[in-house]
């Protein structure tokens, strides 16, 4: 994602010492997220948008909705695509150019959480079966990187999708034609919330900040839906988790996820 300097690695011993006393480097509890701030409707040109801050990590998400060709094997469903990019102004080591594997993983994990939850009812996004469907693109850009981009991008996309308005098209002469002045709500079925945790030694930390991120042994991102069911999961990092640790992570993801879902709902409701 971004490279870490040797100094970041030296912080590991300090972080570990504090963890032995049950403390984190920024004073949070082990299962506590940083302050989440969600503002929607920040990009009027987009069909839906959000700027999300998780601590000092900041992401802007914009949703664009436009007619597209369906995937060949799913002609009866609309298209949903989620991307993510770390802008070069987000961190000194972020670079321009084609995305590196960690950034591709970021985009795919965020995409998968939302897609697998079935958040958007894509069966309602068909203009003409096998010919023309509605495409929903959610593009995330990281503007400041202070760790845990997975969750920040995911919350930004979810808030942007929840506040998005879908324009209306009609088929005329085999082509979709925009019906001016008509739009409806994007069909939403559930609110997926991802919770990313890291492991340092035997400790599980929710929402690692960039100092902690630099010295994680392993990490795991678990996405839950509004019913509290797990819908997607991704393990990363050079080391693994024990079964007990995974169970603990899933419990944190459900309880923290529920709290975060309420924060997002409140922010979305306030600005709608």
């Amino acid at each position, binding site marked *: 994602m971004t490279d870490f300097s040797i100094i970041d690695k030296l912080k590991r011993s300090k972080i570990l010492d504090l963890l032995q006393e049950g403390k984190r480097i920024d004073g949070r509890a082990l299962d506590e997220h940083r302050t989440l701030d969600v503002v929607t409707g920040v*990009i009027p040109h987009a069909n839906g948008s959000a700027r999300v801050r998780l601590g000092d990590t900041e992401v802007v998400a914009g949703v664009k909705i436009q007619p597209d060709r369906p995937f060949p094997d799913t002609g009866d469903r609309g298209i949903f695509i989620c991307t993510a990019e770390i802008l070069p102004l987000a961190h000194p080591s972020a670079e321009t150019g084609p995305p590196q594997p960690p950034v591709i993983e970021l985009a795919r994990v965020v995409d998968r959480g939302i897609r697998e939850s079935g958040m958007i009812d894509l069966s309602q996004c068909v203009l003409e079966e096998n010919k023309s469907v509605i495409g929903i693109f959610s593009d995330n850009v990281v503007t400041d990187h202070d760790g845990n981009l997975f969750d920040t991008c995911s919350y930004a996309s979810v808030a942007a999708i929840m506040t998005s308005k879908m324009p209306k098209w009609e088929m005329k002469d085999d082509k979709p034609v925009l019906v001016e002045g008509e739009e409806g709500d994007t069909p939403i079925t559930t609110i997926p919330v991802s919770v990313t945790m890291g492991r340092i030694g035997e400790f599980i930390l929710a929402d690692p900040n960039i100092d902690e991120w630099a010295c994680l042994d392993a990490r795991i991102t678990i996405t839950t839906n509004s019913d509290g069911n797990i819908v997607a999961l991704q393990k990363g990092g050079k080391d693994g988790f024990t079964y007990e640790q995974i169970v603990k992570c899933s419990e944190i993801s459900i309880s923290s996820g529920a709290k975060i879902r309420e924060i997002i709902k409140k922010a979305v409701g306030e600005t709608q």
Partner: protein
Amino acid sequence: MVINLGGRKSDMVLLDENGIRCDGRKVNETRKVTIKAGVLKNASGSAYIEFGGNKILAGVFGPRDVHPKHMSNPDTGILRVRYHMEPFSVGERKNPAPSRREIEISKVIKEALEPAVMLEKFPRTAVDVFLEILQADGGTRCAALDAASVALADAGIPMRDLVCACASGKAGDALILDVNNEEDQAGQADMPIGYMPNLGKITLLQLDGVLTPDEFNKCIELGVEGCKKVYEIQKNALREKYFSKGD
């Protein structure tokens, strides 16, 4: 009058009989401009500008090591600028890969900033300026240049002057200040200007459209007046950050 707005026909009136423009401005009025300095944690310097409907983030890094190494110059530092539009910044989703237009704008903005930045003080290093267009609404290159200049100053990089920018142009047969998106697409001329107000130097100048020599001269004068208004807002943004807490 039926005008063509990016392939879309519109009967919008660019200038009415009272000399009022399509967004309610007078001919010599700029849109609302707000600039905030120091908005990013990681960047050495940063700025956020809202110029009418344009929303742009600028981040500066450096002076720092040059990668790739062969780009470094033993006599002076180098300036690198990337102007980039987000996929959601415009009407139709934009492919996130840099377009030829973005590459050109990056270059003209770099060349507009170079005369102001004292790069000779930092040989073998690079100063990187990243300009991210979150929302575009006509006149992004000027707004981006305004933000870039504040971000460079915020990064503490020695400068001879701030560079301020504003476009002038022609629509509805009148010369206008600060061309908006509709006027850019349906108007008669668009001339972005970058200007160093204390040195009196124009460092960015482009023109799309037809102007008589007389109109051209007046257009530059009008644009420079707009630049000077933006300059005050740029200075205020820096004052706000560095002098507002009683020191």
